[in-house]
């Protein structure tokens, strides 16, 4: 059976741009974190899909799965940290709207 890797890669690219849209356009801090998570997922999908394609053919490369598992752990740590900071932001500003959380200038 031949898997169509290209389909997964296109899916990853679409997910990647959805994530970028989330970070750039959404002003809710939690939606920004969701955007980061979507990009992480897109990259994981890309890694797993490419892990089938690399030689030796017909065997799924465990290296790709290894780095995806490590990346999931890191992603969980970053999401936890980001949500902790959002709770603190809410405590200081009484809002999670990033347009209003901008006392610092450029």
């Amino acid at each position, binding site marked *: 059976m031949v898997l169509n890797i290209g389909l997964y890669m296109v899916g990853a690219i679409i997910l*990647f741009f959805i994530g970028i849209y989330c*970070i750039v356009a959404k002003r809710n*801090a939690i939606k*920004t*974190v969701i955007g*980061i998570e979507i*990009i*992480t997922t*897109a*990259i994981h999908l*890309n*890694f797993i899909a*490419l*892990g089938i*394609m*690399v*030689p030796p053919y017909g065997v799924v*490369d465990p*290296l*790709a799965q*290894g*780095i995806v598992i*490590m*990346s999931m752990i*890191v992603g969980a*740590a*970053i999401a936890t*940290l*980001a949500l902790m*900071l*959002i709770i*603190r*932001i809410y405590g*200081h*500003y009484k809002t999670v709207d990033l347009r209003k*959380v*901008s*006392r*610092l200038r*450029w």
Partner: protein
Amino acid sequence: MESFLILYPIITLVVAAVLVPIISLIGKALNFEKLREAFTIAGFLAALYMLFNLYQELKTVKDGLLTYRIEGFGPPFGVIFVVDWLSIFMASLFCGLGLMAAIFSIRYMEEDSGLERYYTLLFTLVTGMVGVAFAGDFFNFFIFWETMCVSSYVLVSFRIRLWEPVEAGFKYLVMSTFGSLLVLYAMSYLYGLTGTLNFAYIAKAISDISTPTILYFLIGLIIVGFGIAAAVAPFHTWLPDAHPAAPAPISAMLSGVVIKAGVYGIIRLLALVLHPAPIDWSIFVIVLAIFACLTMTVGNVMALLQNDIKRLLAFSSVAQIGYITLALSVGLFGGVIGIYGLTSGLLHVMNHAIMKGLLFLCAGAIIHAAGTRDLRELIGIGHKMHGTAIILTVGALAISGIPPFNGFISELAILLATINAGMGLFAAIMLANIIIGFSYYLKLLYMLVWQSPKENLQNVKEAPFSMLLPMAILAILCIVIGLWPQPFIDFASKAAESALNFTTYISII
């Protein structure tokens, strides 16, 4: 050559990070709270000693490469540590500035709570950076990179009860994570193209790749990803918020070495891993040089407008990253010109770590004494703090490139390397920027040291000894490197040669 010594600095730092909370508890039980600080300093000294051992071992190896295969599994599947002169150069900078920050923190952080977490995070931050420098494949590189990033996010927002660290920390987290993810995305495609994550095997496989067009796209992702971490304009917007919001020793670490980890990533990936690829490198030389000019101009012009001492220093860091990036773009030429360019860049990496660490520690001492960061409130504080004023003057003159100090050597070297590579226009832009940089450091010195003190500073006292000591060490280093640069230039040029010498790297591993 296989060497177990590679693991020792990393193991020392990790074990110290784990032991800090336990030592802290023991210290509390013994009524001797400073045991924690003493242990931290001992930990950094031990790590530096291990690095020195590694340096001695590296000297004995003819081709200048040490490797360690974890559990004996070799590439392309196993995880591998590789140490060459560039790695040891960067790692000793990371550890050395970590030691200075730890000594400075003894008095600076004593009023904060949760110090056992602070020192643990300081250790994990340095562990991450040393691991990034020693990594021989993307697997290691990614894990240590994220260790470094997560530690620095927490350290930036360490004083979480204030609004500024929280806001700056969140901004830093979002932007820097996005940068790491871009690099990871590029990694996944490199893995798909070559079937391995090992640097040397990727370099081997990439030279006869069938579709080189995609590499332009991947190198763009890598430059942007590491550019965010290294604060290359226009991706620098997190830096002037995050660096001032952190406690002063952490600002020194972030501005001195953490952004240099991004620079190291660019050097490692573009000069070694992707350099054998059959593509036109001159495009990236120009792209990097334009980024560099943009970065230094933005940094310097914005620094001119600041009234906050730490924001001024943070924007100055952006400008200095511009100089370093210009040197890197020359380094991409390869050959003798490239080695010359990269040597000057690495020399400036070292000098900037020393100078900016020094300036941020000075700023910390001043803020600790006066309780404000506003330059207009701090007018004439040098008259009350003589030691700090002398050291601040050394640092400010060094970073603006005045001859007897170290900044002059490396800025001149970058200028000469740029002209040598036939990029005279960029050298002219850099020269103009150095003059602008001098002007705002003169303003800083005029306001803080020259003018007579204001009334609100009557009760200001000199900084305590444990703050002055790391500042004095860094100031002496500024003068020593300025007067006797030859051994440091030799070290940097060895590092640059081994960074550009991908044929040896590929053949050894």
